[in-house]
């Protein structure tokens, strides 16, 4: 018998073993494809938000160092909501279904058993509906709650990072509070060289404990502006991860020297 005759429909009808195997393989393939299709469709239709992680929000706070990487998170971190405590009526109403023994602690449960009053039955039904609704709401809240292990804030952060270098945070805070016009210096022509050194100590709760000028600039307006900035920075918005003791802060106007050359 030639190969052509083996694969002909006529041979399959007559129960050729090779043709039968091909038919079985065809049917198995069809079944697998059907299962795959049902799986895809079923998964798509039956997908639940429960297992999905919310989108990651990246907040660049004007390139400023942030102490807490989660500071830019849009919504507060949510703990898993506790399921609502079952109402006494519902608990009592379920109890008789499991056991026929009457409970002394729940006298209300005896009412539907021994009384066939229609109004009472309706009230109990409404109560059962409310309990079911509350359970569904709790399940929904749980599904939509942000899991604790979702990366938030910075792209690679997981919410447990200690934050950036505390010195960078202190630097940003003091700089933000430092107000000085280049027009107000006694000798703006020397702006490129002006510099003051100050030793500062911050407690762990972000309180400026002390500051001391090691090297004043010699320009009273410049030094006064630094004092004002430090007084304004005496309490940082957030606590520090560590105590900063005797850190030297160098104040200068390197970035403003171009303006200084223009002035006067």
């Amino acid at each position: 018998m030639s190969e052509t005759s083996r694969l002909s429909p006529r041979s399959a009808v007559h129960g050729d073993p090779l043709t039968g195997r091909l038919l079985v393989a065809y049917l198995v393939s069809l079944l697998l494809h059907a299962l795959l299709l049902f799986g895809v469709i079923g998964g798509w239709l039956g997908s639940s938000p429960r297992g999905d992680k919310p989108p990651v929000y990246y907040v660049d706070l004007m390139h400023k160092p942030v102490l807490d990487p989660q500071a830019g998170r849009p919504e507060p971190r949510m703990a898993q909501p506790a399921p609502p405590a079952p109402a006494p009526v519902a608990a009592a109403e379920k109890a008789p279904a499991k056991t026929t023994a009457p409970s002394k602690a729940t006298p209300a449960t005896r009412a539907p058993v021994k009384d066939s009053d229609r109004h009472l039955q309706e009230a109990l039904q409404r109560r059962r509906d409310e309990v079911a609704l509350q359970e569904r709401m709790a399940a929904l809240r749980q599904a939509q709650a942000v899991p604790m292990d979702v990366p938030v804030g910075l792209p690679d952060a997981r919410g447990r990072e200690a934050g950036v270098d505390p010195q960078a945070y202190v630097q940003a805070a003091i700089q933000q509070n430092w107000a000085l016009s280049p027009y107000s210096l006694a000798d703006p022509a020397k702006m490129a060289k002006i510099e003051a050194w100050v030793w500062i100590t911050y407690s762990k709760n972000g309180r400026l404990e002390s500051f001391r000028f090691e090297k004043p600039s010699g320009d009273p307006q410049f030094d006064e502006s630094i004092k004002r900035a430090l007084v304004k920075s005496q309490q940082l918005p957030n606590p520090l991860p560590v105590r900063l003791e005797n850190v030297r802060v160098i104040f200068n106007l390197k970035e403003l020297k171009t303006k200084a050359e223009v002035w006067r």
Partner: protein
Amino acid sequence: MRRLRPLFLLLLLAASWAMAARAADIEITAPGQQTLPLALTRFLPQGGAPAPAVAEELHAVLAADLDLAGIFRFVDPAAFLSDAVQVGLFSTQVDFSQWRLLGVEVLIKGTYSVQGDQLTVEGRLFDVPNRRLLTGRRFVGRVADVRRIAHAFADLILKELTGVAGPFDARIAFISSRSGHKELWLMDVDGHGAIRLTNHRSLVLNPDFSPTGKELLFTSYRAGNPDLYRKEIFTGQEARVSSHPGLNIAGRYAPDNSALAATLSRDGDPEIYLLGRDGALRKRLTSSFGIDVDPSWSPDGRQLAIVSSRLGAPQIFIVDLNSGASRRLTANGKYDATPAWSPTGERIAFTRQEKGRFDIYTIRPDGSDERRLTFGPGNLEHPRWSPDGRFLVYSSDAGGKKALYVIRADGTGSRRLTPPGVDASHPAWSSVW
């Protein structure tokens, strides 16, 4: 050598420790805010009937002066809390926490009292973060002096916050033909209160204040020839100080008020001469084939910046008074004119004509760091410095008729001083009045 190894190791450790210690420094290379947050409250009546017009004028003049200074950022008065309407002349009377809440660093409060024609103003400047009084003064004058009182308080504020008093309680002399002829006029530095000083009914030009600010030197064609005149502002007395044949123009007082420099053409072409205060000829300072005009003294009185066409086109030159040596200052333009040496001595302002228009430039006296301050429109000419070197006043014909404008020394904050419809040119800024 082996014995020294531990020492080397110790030195290495010490060096690395020192480097680690340096790495712990915090360096802040620019302030977060380049203006001081300022709260300017309305002055409140105290001990007299309320005079809202006086309070309004005090506030407006102070605000305009401090805004021109460029140092401050005004906190919106709509955000002020209850302390803004409480009298607070002492630090114990001010609720600083309210102002800190608004981010204010310096606070201005004050009171006024009107008794008949007498006006008493108390002005105070507070440091909000440090909760202390920085400066304050009581001003007593006539009600008509309200603008001058506000200018004087603005000068005091700048003195406290910058170390150099402001130039607002001063006058600007200028030339205007609003009376029909080009005459000498005087006004406040914000353009108010213009009064005519001369009535020559001819042509008056080029005023210059004496260092005391109480006397003016100018050129007038009153006698037919451009002669130099001197006028005492308060007495009104006037005298002709130089009437040589030809030009007697562009007279400038020496910084120590001991002499005058002026352009005379008595020997042919215009040259720079040194004169006594009485006009006596002392010395010829330049001797070139070109025209030498427009002298401007250095603050130390040892040099003059002049305009000379000795190399062809007008350029700025520096002339040493002792040696008589001169050097070229500007080399980039084809037509530079009217130099004005700043009171601090660090820059010289001048005008340059390019593409048929004049603009204002500054340059260091050594010829370096030339900067263009203005970019039109119109012809911007005759720059003169304020006595503190913070500002320049100049004339511009951008609107048709020439008007006076003021800008900061870095070219920012241009503001018109004279009203539209009347011409004004050739300004000169007096010392503090």
